[in-house]
């Protein structure tokens, strides 16, 4: 066997491996979809059928009839979008200061900020609740959005990125008489698009997925994950048996927006996370 054949063999083995891995990776998601389209009788059956014998939208219908899914959905979307915009702006500004400017206590403060990543968020829920209660903003849009603005991960991510941008770019602009704000908005932000997109995805997702805080803080402003988990998943209640058809339909509806955001932005995402946008 010569090298060429060996190479071809290698390629085939790699492809097979790839195919196998991909199948394992997407099988659970496909199974979620498949289950959500089956009638209950077919779900609880000892035969596994990937394609339902009887297609039904009954699970989705039941879900929308029983629960106010649409309003949960909009609360979630608006809150996630608002916090993404705010976090992007304030984190980018702060990260730029951390990456490019010298000021008193910079490293100490950065360390303090990043160390907040280590605190389990559960511990902040009660103090936050008391705070929002004091200003009478519980169960409001503000309550959903504001607590996400203390986002520290973005500072960490963007600072790393900004440090990879060659200083010459800014120095040239500085010579031309641009101020820091102009440099930041006109030069730094545009070339940081990939990193910003990455942060946008992460922020959107973490707001979209957050659970304990919206649960405690809202009644009418219920979000999708809270709504789904509290009424559909059948956690704990007296009738502890889960109706997987409805549960999977709910799951699918709640992961779909995040999936769409990711799939449409994934190109940016992979590029952004390389933290090397300037090269491409």
């Amino acid at each position: 066997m010569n090298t060429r054949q060996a190479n071809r063999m290698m390629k085939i083995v790699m492809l097979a491996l790839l195919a196998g891995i991909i199948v394992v990776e997407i099988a659970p998601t496909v199974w979620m979809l498949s289950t959500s389209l089956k009638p209950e009788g077919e779900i609880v059956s000892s035969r596994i059928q990937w394609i339902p014998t009887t297609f039904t939208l009954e699970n989705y219908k039941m879900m929308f009839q029983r629960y106010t899914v649409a309003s949960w959905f909009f609360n979630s979307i608006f809150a996630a979008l608002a916090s993404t915009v705010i976090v992007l702006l304030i984190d980018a500004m702060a990260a730029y200061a951390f990456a490019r400017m010298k000021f008193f206590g910079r490293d100490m403060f950065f360390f303090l900020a990043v160390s907040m990543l280590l605190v389990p968020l559960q511990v902040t829920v009660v103090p936050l609740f008391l705070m929002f209660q004091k200003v009478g903003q519980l169960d409001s849009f503000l309550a959903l959005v504001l607590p996400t603005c203390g986002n520290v991960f973005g500072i960490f991510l963007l600072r790393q990125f900004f440090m990879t941008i060659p200083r010459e770019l800014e120095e040239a602009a500085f010579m031309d008489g641009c101020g820091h704000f102009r440099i930041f908005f006109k030069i730094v932000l545009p070339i940081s698009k990939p990193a910003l997109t990455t942060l946008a995805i992460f922020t959107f997702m973490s707001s979209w997925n957050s659970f304990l805080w919206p649960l405690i803080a809202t009644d009418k402003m219920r979000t999708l994950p809270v709504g789904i988990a509290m009424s559909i998943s059948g956690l704990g209640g007296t009738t502890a048996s889960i109706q997987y058809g409805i549960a999977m339909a709910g799951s699918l509806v709640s992961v779909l927006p995040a999936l769409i955001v990711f799939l449409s932005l994934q190109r940016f995402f992979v590029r952004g996370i390389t933290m090397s946008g300037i090269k491409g």
Partner: protein
Amino acid sequence: MKKRIAKVIVLFLAFAAVAGVTGCKQQPKTGPGGVIELQFWGGWTGPDGKAMEQIVKSFNEKNKDVKVTLTTFQWDPLFNKFLMSMRAGNAPDVIAMHQTDIPQYAAMNVLEPMDEAIAKAGLKPEDFDAGAWEGFKYKGKMLALPLDIHMFAMYYNKDMFKKAGLDPEKPPVDGASLIEAAKKLTITGPDGKVSQYGVGVPATHQHAYRYWYSLLYQDGGQFMSPKGKAAFNSKQGVEAYQFLYNLVYKEKVAPEQETDVAKDFQSQKVAMIFEGPWWVPGMSEVKGLNFGTARFPKIFAKQSVWANSHGLCLPMQKNADPKRREATLRLLKFISDNSLDWAKGGQIPVRKSVSESAEFKAITLLKPFVDSVPDAVYLPKLEKGSMIFASNASTPMMTAMQEVMLDQKKPKEALDIAAKQVDAILAGK
């Protein structure tokens, strides 16, 4: 430069304004036209939630001056939110609780004694089941209006009974007949695998320790000693678990490591299960499932069965408005009077006038449950009850149950450990 700063600031103000405007919606206590708005919270997320929604809807239709909003989600977060809202001063007007929850929240002083309110609403104790009524008393005061009772009964598959040569109208009534029937109902295939089991006993689900609790009292045991110490690691306690253990590991008529008996019963893998009345509507909807219900079998000397009960509580209000109070009482009475509709969601009404009505008696599948009302044994009233019994965490009773049903420890050993833990919790450690 200055312009940039100005731009940023304007941007921020815009954000704050948008967020602020959308955020600023205070909950009006009184709606337009003087309509009184009441908040009613309950942890029902299944068919029971639907049934309560119907009752609330018809109340709203008949009482134009009141608008009740029913909020339902799982019990655990419901109580979290309840305490938080108590603190925030916007507690709901009515909250549903299990009898077993009462001591914990009563001790926190968040529930209002209701003796007077119940009398004002025109409801009389004589019309209620005495066991349930007493169960909602704490330190001599009524803390809730009893709504229903729920206990276990046997659900059995009539078709499977016929196929196994058993009389589908004569389900087992005691230990011997239960094991005998279960043996006949357990089918082993040619490959040595069991394709159908006689009975289901969950290994990790809370209901298993409630079966045990039933059997403990059937055998004449007690959970607590009169001195307030754990007494369940007695001979009776061990015998009770031994019986459940034997069904799985000795007689082999129940599957090992069972998690979801209801699902196995629905899919006709298991012929007999013990479940609450809340499954009656759900099981009736399953196509091709021909089932009956019967009283929880009498394994030992007494006919006892674990039970719990829902009640409607009034949270402490800082400034109780007499108008709201009147509307709230009207709501309570309405729900109680209409508990027949509640029963249709799979609950046993606690009002004798309802459970004795012809219309309720027409729901024959619920009859064994009503017959079991006198056999009901409730969990002891303990302020730290949730730390001992809660099913959603590793409480002593859940752990002991799993140790036994997963064949990790002998019943005596598991119960001894649990008893020690219970004593420690009660001692405030």
